[in-house]
């Protein structure tokens, strides 16, 4: 029976791969309404995992207008 790989693994397009064989980088984008951080794992130049985290800086607002008599 084969021993399980003791190295930390991470799920990718190629199944679970040891993290230490992957290249990891982050990309940040600061837009007017949101900040985005992408976590990218590549294996031999191929993207095998890409997670994205978006932070909304603010939501939507609506105004209430009131009629004036006279």
């Amino acid at each position: 029976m084969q021993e399980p790989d003791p190295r930390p693994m991470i799920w990718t397009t190629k199944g679970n791969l040891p993290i230490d064989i992957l290249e990891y980088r982050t990309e940040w984008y600061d837009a007017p309404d949101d900040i985005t951080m992408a976590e990218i794992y590549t294996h031999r130049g191929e993207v095998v995992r890409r997670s994205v985290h978006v932070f909304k800086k603010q939501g939507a607002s609506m105004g209430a207008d009131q009629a004036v008599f006279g």
Partner: protein
Amino acid sequence: MANTAAICNSFKTELLQGIHAFGTSVVRAGTGADTFKAALFLASATLSKSTTAYSATGEVSGTNYTAGGVTVTNANAPANASDITYWTPSASFAWTTVTLGTAFDCCLLYNSTQSNKAVAVFTFSSQTVTAGNFTLTQPTNDQTTGLLRLS
């Protein structure tokens, strides 16, 4: 002492609580909050202020993504400060271990209790996800940045 014309702050909050009905309303099953959901839409979709209800047309699809999106965590009651009523979900919208290969840039917040009626359309920078997670973190729940604000 003088009178000051205004739309009452309490009324703004009560709108978000479903207290007032100037037109035909619905029979509510109870006094609890409705269930809201959030779904993701492709950058090529055409959601806007004219969207009236959730539809799967233009929704993202891919591994581990369920049509209709995720249930919104709602532990925040509508509140009012500085004459602005606001409400924000109490947790991020999160999709785990998904593959969404076609660019998406939109999230629809809708009321699944009330026939999937639309609440708001939110956009963000166009994204794809590969065997990973997508998280939409909510803004600070206050009168300046809350996800829904009624002034």
